[in-house]
């Protein structure tokens, strides 16, 4: 893959990851949020694929396919089942309203770009210059977890954090070894399965998915 095509497609895929993170804060419908997460997973796979093709690394291409299937299809399908069992399926009242949290996402992105400046000077390649995008995705994920109330949106926040970390890993080290990436992704898949069981239990016990209404643990 030639230079400009490589850097252009890498920038584009990384940009899609960041925009998807912002869109999860923007949309209220849980269905749309899960769909956005699926697109982000595919974009993350595309980042790994572009890097793999550029470096002629078969392992990285395999990781890319695995990431795309796990984060672009498997996890969103699991989440969609939870959403379907939720009668309202909307993020009705986040702790911070949508315009303010979007501006917050912009501020977090600025913060990410400012704080990762030393890292990007250490690694002045195309991939290295995009590391702030991964960090911004991570911060937006934390932000989504703190301001959203529904169980599904908090899981999505967690997955945004994970996607941000994975993006940084791909860009900084040109891909972690296949076995580690498999382990991490399966770990996340397991977390989603556990959270799904938890959310379903919540739904059947309390008839809702609002985590703020849970004050204490019962057996």
């Amino acid at each position, binding site marked *: 893959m030639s230079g400009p095509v490589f850097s252009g497609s890498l920038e*584009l895929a990384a940009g899609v990851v960041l925009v998807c993170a*912002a869109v999860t804060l923007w949309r209220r419908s849980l269905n749309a949020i899960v769909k956005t997460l699926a697109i982000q997973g595919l974009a993350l796979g595309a980042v790994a694929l572009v890097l793999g093709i550029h470096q002629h690394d078969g392992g990285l291409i395999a990781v890319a396919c695995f990431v795309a299937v796990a984060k672009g299809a498997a996890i969103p399908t699991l989440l969609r089942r939870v959403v379907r069992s939720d009668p309202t399926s909307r993020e009705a009242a986040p702790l911070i309203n949508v*315009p*303010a949290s*979007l501006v917050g996402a912009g501020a977090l*992105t600025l913060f990410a770009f400012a704080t990762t400046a030393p890292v990007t000077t250490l690694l002045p390649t195309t991939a290295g210059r995009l590391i*702030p995008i991964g960090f911004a995705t991570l911060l937006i994920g934390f932000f989504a977890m703190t301001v959203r109330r529904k169980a599904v949106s908090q899981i999505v926040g967690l997955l945004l954090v994970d996607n941000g970390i994975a993006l940084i890993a791909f860009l900084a080290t040109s891909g972690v070894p296949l076995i580690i990436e498999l382990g991490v992704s399966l770990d996340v898949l397991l977390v989603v399965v556990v959270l799904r069981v938890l959310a379903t239990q919540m739904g059947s016990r309390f008839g809702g998915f609002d985590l703020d209404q849970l004050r204490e643990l019962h057996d």
Partner: protein
Amino acid sequence: MSASGAVVTSVAVGFVQVLVIGIGGLLLVGLMRKVRSHLEGRVGPPIHQPMLDLRKLFTKERVRPDHASWIFPAGPVVLVATVVLLAAISPLLTIHPPIKHGADFFVVVFVLLIGSVVLALAALDPGTPFGGMGASRAMTIAALTEPALLVAILALSIPARTSDLSSLVRIGLIHPQLIASPGRILALGAFVVVILAESGRLPIDNPSTHLELTMIHEAMVLEYAGSDLALVTLGEAMRLSFLVALLVNLFAPWGVATRPGAPALVIGLVALAGKVALTGMAIATFEVFTAKLRLFRVPELLAGGFVLAVFASLTALVVR
């Protein structure tokens, strides 16, 4: 070519551009209504209907409120004057506009804002409740779109190292790969949101409604009649076509005249008309499938535009 000859040519170019934006704006409004009617299964008025409406309005009696001051008649005139000025100096048909380096992006933004502010003042002037309500809503939206627009401009200016419109269009022609860069694509998203808001199109304001709860722009111009209303209609149509023409020239500059001379200008005109018509049809199709947002949801959309603009300029800074 002598100096006076160059002046004559550039004045002629400016004049042609104003004519194109004026007539093209009315035709664009007609075309968008036609596309909309077709998709809704109606025949719809002919494409030149806005021109007929305008001619009718100019012959009608002009009624002005008794207590209105000079601001009220000045509003439509200033609105049209700002767009005429911008249409004359911007690189629309050719990248050699009449005034060299006259059409800076920031100049365009603030001259457009003069038109909006004077129209809002004119709406407040007669002291009717609808005018005040419309003006307050319009100014709320303007206050939210303006920062998004200014930040989105940065995304285009940083890679080009200039905010001069002719240079931006020329750079788009020389380096087509810059157009597909992620910063540009994000900026395009922000610009589309801003243009829909500035020209009062559907998800933000419904241009064909007169329902008191929802209207924004129509509430402002409710007191106008006759030739005043004709000027407001013309100004709004020109504003829409100017913004769309600027958008297509910045993000798809192919066809714009790079050399002086009539043949290049004609090619530029055909290309611009085609691109603007396609964009207008796309907007109209989008409007058929969209409902107007609740007024309290509009800030969410505009904040989304602002975040896109922030991302765009950050990406432009990083990618460089």
